[in-house]
């Protein structure tokens, strides 16, 4: 490779796709993976690199999008791709970006902006890898995107619950039984909100859903363009673990947004912007009842009315009680309580 002239640590300028007809025609993640019928996460991979383009390196931490995508000799990747350990998406992004920066700034390789994207599942991102992602989001001199594809369980290993699994869901670690109907009683982690709030120098955090493909791709392009470490949280319906007809992947993605369970927003340089159906909800459009979403999935088939009501109540709180609806779970102390407060 030719020696560099000057190194600027710049990023690729990726303008948003103006509509579906303007989307890149080439595929950088193609056929040959062994994912489930209707796998939304495979679609996320495809859209992610379609948005990023050819001059991209992708790192994938252990999970479905590793094991099912790249069984030996059966890669679907057109761009360079490398496996990283389950908890290492943050370190993989950081190390790859740092290696390129070092070699380019020292003139050892040609200086050019190369996209670095590391992805992780909810197990790798919201559970095991959270610390490394957090660290990476503080290293502002390294350009990389970490994309969390959240199918709400350790779907590769047999559907075990993760910190991102919804309340009450049936998983192989939380089977409903005669004695205990709901083993899993933890509420889903607010991963994107936590990372946006906790890393003031991370310039871009967004939530996406591939049911809205063009918007999803444009968030990826924005994250790669703005530079520094960035984070995107994608909610991916999983026909295997959620137990539904694979044909319904898109519909369930839409329902997750329309019920207000998964809000779509982006935080750019500290500025919060809701978008899509979520913006309509913030602007006052009624949310669909969560049951319309939950009862289409076998993982909630054991729910009783009280479970559905509890779930609805918790989602209502996100929108009616949270200081920043759907994003930051702080609540303002009400006046009477404040008055009684000794301090």
């Amino acid at each position, binding site marked *: 490779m030719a020696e560099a002239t000057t190194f600027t640590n710049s990023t690729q300028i990726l303008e948003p796709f103006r509509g*579906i*007809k303007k*989307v890149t*025609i*080439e*595929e*950088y*993640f*193609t*056929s*040959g*993976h*062994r*994912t*489930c*019928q*209707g*796998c*939304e996460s*495979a*679609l996320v991979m*495809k*859209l992610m690199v379609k948005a990023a383009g*050819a001059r991209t390196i992708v790192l994938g931490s252990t999970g479905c999008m590793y*094991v*099912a995508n790249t*069984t*030996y*000799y*059966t*890669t*679907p*990747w*057109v*761009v360079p*791709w490398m496996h990283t350990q389950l908890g290492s998406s943050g370190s993989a992004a950081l190390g790859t970006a740092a290696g390129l920066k070092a070699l380019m700034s020292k003139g050892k390789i040609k200086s050019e902006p190369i996209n670095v994207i590391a992805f992780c599942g909810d197990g790798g991102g919201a559970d095991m890898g959270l610390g490394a992602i957090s660290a990476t989001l503080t290293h502002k001199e390294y350009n990389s995107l970490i994309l969390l594809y959240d199918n709400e369980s350790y779907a*590769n*290993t*047999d*559907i075990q619950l993760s910190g991102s699994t919804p309340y009450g869901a*049936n998983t192989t670690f939380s089977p409903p039984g005669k004695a205990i109907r709901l083993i899993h009683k933890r509420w889903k982690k607010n991963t994107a909100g936590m990372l946006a709030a906790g890393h003031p120098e991370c310039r871009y955090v967004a939530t996406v859903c591939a049911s809205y493909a*063009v918007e999803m791709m444009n968030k990826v392009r924005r994250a790669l363009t703005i530079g520094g470490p960035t984070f995107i949280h994608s909610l991916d319906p999983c*026909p*295997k*673990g959620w*137990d*539904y*007809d*694979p*044909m*319904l*992947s*898109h519909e369930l993605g839409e329902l997750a947004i329309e019920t207000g369970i998964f809000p779509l927003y982006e935080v750019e340089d500290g500025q919060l912007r809701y978008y899509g159906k979520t913006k309509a909800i913030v602007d006052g459009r009624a949310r669909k009842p969560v049951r319309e979403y939950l*009862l*289409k*999935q*076998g*993982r909630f*088939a*054991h729910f009783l009315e009280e479970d559905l009501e509890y779930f609805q109540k918790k989602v209502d709180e996100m929108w009616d009680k949270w200081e920043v609806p759907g994003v930051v779970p702080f609540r303002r102390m009400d006046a009477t309580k404040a008055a009684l407060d000794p301090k």
Partner: protein
Amino acid sequence: MPALICEVVYRGIFQKNLAARMVRGIVLSARKSGRWGIAFGRYGDSPQRNGIPAKDFAIVADTKEELEQNMARYEPKHVDVTVCVDDTLSKGVESWAWYGLQPINRLTVPNGTLLMTSLQAPEELLKDIHKKDAPYKLALIRAKASFSGLWVYKEDHTEARILGALAKIAPAFLSLDGVSQAIQEIEWGSDLKVASARKAYERLETREVKMTEGNTEIPYSFEMPKWWEMREGVTIPAIPIGKPKEGGQGYVPERNPYFKKFTTRTMRPVIDFDTCVKCNLCWISCPDSCFDVMPDATFDANMEACCGCGVCEAVCPVEKCITMVNESAFSDNASQWEMWRKDKAAYKTWLLATIGDKKTTARSHGFRFRGQYEEELKNDLETGGVEITAGIPGENAQHKTV
């Protein structure tokens, strides 16, 4: 016969629980006549994926020693009975566990039995089932494929009927009484299921298959490289970028040559190129990148890459522009677009006929809403609108419980 070796070829996830019930049922039934047995899934198929073919095995023997000859294996080298609970698998099996396409009857011993659930005639099935260099028996249970998911099970008696049929096929190992007793005691058993097993025993249709019969296609295979031929650092080449279709128009992605995925498919999209509005939604939404962009900006689903999820039909804004149709209606993976380009009128006729058949367009991909399976079964039991595994249409109408 020192041992009875059975394989169950099934659809990953959709039939995972069904297959597990069958292989466990085989062992527990044989136990009733004092036999020893093991049941296991092929480790290489795990973690399973929706639709991707997988295998479970049940081996029963007179003695523990005979059993040991078949233990600590990923799969037996040959089987006495191949059980296949989705007749679209008759086109061949490309599983997680290996590279290339394997005929459904590959492991079946000479004069062994291929036991299938199907609504098709044997002659129809043999158009797909690959030719074998030995005669064998094709045994059929009249039933449609039973699909459900990981958490909600469709209690349509398929497992009971397979066990009943096996008692007919291998009486030396599985007596009908043993099977009935096992079903009664097993956690998912019931009297009605015992009845279904016994009916299956009576009604099993068996047909000799000659060496001359079957699909003559040579399945694609894969040569394993030697250790020094493999690239170091656990690396493999990436897939090249695709090319325009023709005259610089359209786009065809390069595809992985080693895993084609079409045997995962039970239904395929049938596309009406005349009504396509070129909205791009099917193309952008396909998780398997199976749509080639044609020079006229329509989209042709590559039938070697399509795994039949149906997302394209779900997102298509035009009524009947994309329709999912059962694989049994097709005999090859030819390009629909080329067919359409050659003779648009003929294509239209074919299209209307193909998407017009209610039986082949019925959806069978698992859970859609709570209570769905009960509704379907109730309906089947009372009206017998479609044959189900519980027996002959309407004959169980007096039973209100399933």
